C-alpha cells in the first residue's frame, strides 16, 4: 500500500470517527459552511474590487480619453473647414478665423488631455506625439497661406492646399490609430468577469444550501423551529449573493448602455461631423481653385453624411434624439441647397455665395452636430458614473456581510453542539 493510500485511509477513518456522533457531524458541517462562506467572500470581494477598479478607470480615464480623442478629431476637421473658409474670404472673414482658432485650440487641448490621461501606453504616446507635430506643421502652413494671401502672393493657394492635404492624409491616419488604441482600452476595461462572478455566485449558492440544510436537519433532530444565528447567517448569505448579482448585472447594463447610447453614438456623430467637414473643405476648394472636380468629391463626402444621418436616425431611441436628428437633416439639406446654388453660379458669384449662404448654412449644421455630440458625451459619462456608483457599497456587502454570516453560522452550530455536552 502506498504512502498516499495509507494517508487517505487514515484521514477517512479519522473523519468517520469525528462525524460518528451528532456534535461531530455539526462540527464538520460548520467547518465546511465556514469554508464555503469564506470562499464566497473572497470571490465576491475580488469581483467587487475588479468592478470598482474598472468602472472607476472607465469613468475617470477611459471615458474621458475616448471623448477627448473623438473631439480632437472632430475639432481638427472643424479647424480645417474654418481655415479654408477664412482663406477663401481673404482676410475679411473674422468669424471663420475665430472658428478656426477656437477649433484648433480645442483640438490641441484635447490631444494634451488624452496624453495626460492615457498612462504608460508607449504606442499611443508615439501616435500623440506625431499628431501634435502634425498639428503644428498644419497650423504653420495655414499661417503661411494666410500671410501669402494677404500679400497677394500666388503661392498662397498651394500652401493652403498643402495644409488641407496634410491633415486629410497624415492627420486621418494618426487619428485612426489613436481611436483604435482608445477603443481597445474601452473593450479591455469593460470586459465581463464571467468566470469569477460564476464562482462567487456558486459559492454563495452553496453556502445558502448548506445553511438551509443545516437548519432542516437541526429542526428535525431537536424539534426546535429556529436557530436564530443560522437564520441570520442564511439571510446574510442571500443578501450578499443577490446584491452581488444585482450590482454586477446593473453595472453590465450601464456599461452596455454607455457603449450603445454613448460611445457608439459619439463615434457615429463624430464621423458625421468629419464627413460634413470634408464636404465643406472640398466645396470650398472647388470655389478657391475654380475646380469643378472638387464639387464631385464634395458630393461623395455628402453621400457619406447622408448615410450617417440615416444611421443616426435609426439609432435614435427617444423623442429628443429623433428631434435632434431631424434638425441635423434639415440643416444639412439647407447647406446642400446652398452648395447647389454655389455650383450653378459664375466664378465671382460663387465666392460671395460660399462666404454667405455656404458659411452660414454649414456652420448651422456643424454646430448642431457638435451639440448632439455633447449630448452623447453626457450620456456616456452619466452611464459610466452610474456604473461606478453602483459598486460603491459592494465591497462592504460582499466582504463584511459574508464574514458576519460566517461568524453567525459558527455560533449557531456551536449553540447546538453545546446542547450535547
Amino acid at each position, binding site marked *: 500500500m502506498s504512502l498516499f493510500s495509507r494517508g487517505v485511509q487514515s484521514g477517512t477513518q479519522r473523519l468517520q470517527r469525528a462525524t460518528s456522533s451528532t456534535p461531530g457531524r455539526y462540527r464538520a458541517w460548520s467547518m465546511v459552511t465556514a469554508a464555503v462562506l469564506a470562499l464566497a467572500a473572497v470571490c465576491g470581494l475580488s469581483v467587487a474590487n475588479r468592478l470598482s477598479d474598472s468602472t472607476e478607470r472607465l469613468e475617470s480615464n477611459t471615458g474621458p480619453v475616448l471623448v477627448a480623442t473623438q473631439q480632437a478629431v472632430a475639432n481638427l476637421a472643424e479647424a480645417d473647414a474654418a481655415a479654408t473658409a477664412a482663406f477663401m474670404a481673404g482676410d475679411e472673414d473674422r468669424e471663420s478665423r475665430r472658428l478656426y482658432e477656437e477649433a484648433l485650440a480645442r483640438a490641441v487641448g484635447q490631444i494634451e488631455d488624452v496624453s495626460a490621461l492615457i498612462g504608460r501606453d508607449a504606442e499611443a504616446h508615439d501616435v500623440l506625439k506625431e499628431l501634435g507635430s502634425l498639428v503644428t506643421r498644419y497650423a504653420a502652413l495655414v499661417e503661411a497661406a494666410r500671410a501669402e494671401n494677404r500679400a497677394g502672393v500666388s503661392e498662397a493657394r498651394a500652401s493652403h492646399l498643402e495644409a488641407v492635404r496634410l491633415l486629410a492624409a497624415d492627420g486621418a491616419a494618426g487619428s485612426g490609430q489613436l481611436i483604435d488604441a482608445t477603443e481597445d482600452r474601452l473593450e479591455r476595461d469593460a470586459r465581463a468577469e464571467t468566470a469569477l462572478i460564476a464562482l462567487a455566485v456558486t459559492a454563495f449558492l452553496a453556502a445558502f444550501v448548506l445553511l438551509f440544510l443545516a437548519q432542516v436537519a437541526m429542526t428535525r433532530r431537536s424539534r426546535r423551529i429556529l436557530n436564530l444565528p443560522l437564520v441570520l447567517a442564511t439571510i446574510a448569505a442571500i443578501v450578499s449573493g443577490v446584491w452581488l448579482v444585482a450590482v454586477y448585472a446593473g453595472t453590465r447594463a450601464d456599461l452596455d448602455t454607455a457603449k450603445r447610447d454613448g460611445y457608439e453614438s459619439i463615434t457615429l456623430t463624430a464621423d458625421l461631423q468629419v464627413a460634413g467637414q470634408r464636404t465643406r473643405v472640398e466645396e470650398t476648394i472647388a470655389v478657391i481653385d475654380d475646380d469643378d472636380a472638387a464639387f464631385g468629391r464634395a458630393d461623395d463626402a455628402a453621400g457619406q453624411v447622408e448615410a450617417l444621418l440615416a444611421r443616426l436616425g435609426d439609432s435614435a431611441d427617444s*423623442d429628443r434624439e429623433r428631434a435632434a436628428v431631424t434638425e441635423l437633416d434639415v440643416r444639412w439639406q439647407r447647406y446642400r441647397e446652398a452648395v447647389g446654388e454655389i455650383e450653378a453660379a459664375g466664378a465671382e458669384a460663387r465666392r460671395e455665395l460660399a462666404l*454667405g449662404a455656404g458659411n452660414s*448654412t454649414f456652420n*448651422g449644421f456643424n*454646430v448642431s452636430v457638435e451639440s448632439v455630440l455633447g449630448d452623447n458625451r453626457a450620456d456616456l459619462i452619466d452611464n459610466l458614473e452610474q456604473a461606478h456608483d453602483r459598486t460603491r457599497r459592494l465591497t462592504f456587502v460582499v466582504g463584511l456581510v459574508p464574514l458576519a454570516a460566517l461568524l453567525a453560522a459558527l455560533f449557531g452550530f456551536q449553540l447546538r453542539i453545546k446542547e450535547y455536552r
Partner: protein
Amino acid sequence: MTRRRLTRRDFLGVGAGFAAAGVLAACTGSGAETTQNDGRLRVLNWSDYIDPSVIDSFSANTGIFVTYDSSYGSNEDALATHFEPKLFRGKPTGYDIIVPTYWLVERLVKDGLVEPLWLERIPNHVNVDPEYLGMAWDRGARFHMPWQAGITGIAYDPAQTGREIGSVADLFESDLRGRVGMVVEMRETVGLVMLMRGDDPSRATLGAAEAALDRIDEGIASGQIKSFTDSKFASKLKSGEYAACLAWSGDAAHLQEERPDIRFVVPEEGGIRWFDSMIVPRYAANPIAAADWMNYTYDPEVAATIAEYVQYISPILGVREILEGRGGTAAALADNPILFPDEETRRRLYVWSGMATEDEERLTERFNQITAGKVS
C-alpha cells in the same frame, strides 16, 4: 414704440413700468398632459417687445393661459430683483420664460441656473439663425432661444452735424463738442470705443477696455460727450440736443419712420451686435408650456408679425421672405438694412465677449462712476 431697454432710471421715472397682460385661454387646455404642465405660462420680457396679438393667438392655439409681464427694465434690475435674491439662492423666479441679454444668459447658463430646452417639443428650433448657434457657452443653443437682436451704431441728424458721420472717431471731433450722446449699456459704449482704438470687443481684455474707459472719461471731462442715455436718444436727436449719438438699431428704424432725414450707420470701425434670449430659469413651474411658447414664436409667420412690430433683427430664418410676401410696409421692412443687414455689414459686427465675470463687474462699476451725473 420704444426700444426694449427701459433702464432702471426710466423705470422709476415713469413710475408705472409694470404692465402685465393676462390673456385668458379660449378653450380646453393641453394642461393635463403632464404634471409639469399646469396650463399656465408666465413670461417676463422687456417692454414693447412683442405684438400683443401674438399672445392672444398663442393662447387661442394652445389653450395655455399666459401671464405676460413686460416689466423687465434692465439686466442689472433683473439681477437685483429676480436672479440674485431668488434663482441664485435656489428659489423659483415665478416665471417660466425670461428674456435677458446674451451676456447675462451666458452667466446664468454657466452657473447652471437655466433648464435645458425641451427640444422634442420645439421643432421650430431648426429656424434659429446659425449665427446664434455658435455661442461658446451654449453650442447649438440647447439652453436659450434668441428673441430679438440689434446693432448699436451711430444715429445722426445731417442738418445738425453739417457733414456725414461714418465712424466712432467722428464723435470725438471738436466740431461736435457738447452735442454727442452715448448709450448707458457699458458693453456697447466701451465696445465701440474699443473698436475706434483698434481693439476687438469680441475678445475683450481688461487692459483694452480700461483704455477705452479712459478715452470716454476724457470725452466727458472735455465736454465732448453731453450725456449717456437709452432709447431717449431718439427724442434728443429730434430736439437737436444731440447732433450725433450711439444708438440702437430698432429705435433708429422707428425714428426714421417719423424723420427719414435722420441716418443710422454701422461705424467704419464696426458695430456692436447684441441679442436678448429666451431662457427657462431653473425651478420654472411649466417648462412644457415654455417650450410650446418658444416653438410658437419661432414659427416664421409669427416671428414676422413680431419683427414687423418691434423692428429689431429677427434671429429666425424665413422672416424676411414672409415680410416680402406680405407687401406694403412689411415688404419695405424686408429691404431695410437695419432689420436685415447684408453680409458685408454682418462681417463688421462684433459681439462683446471674452472677459471674466469679475473683470466685467469691475468695468461696470467704473463705467457707472464715470457716467454718474451724466445719465439723462
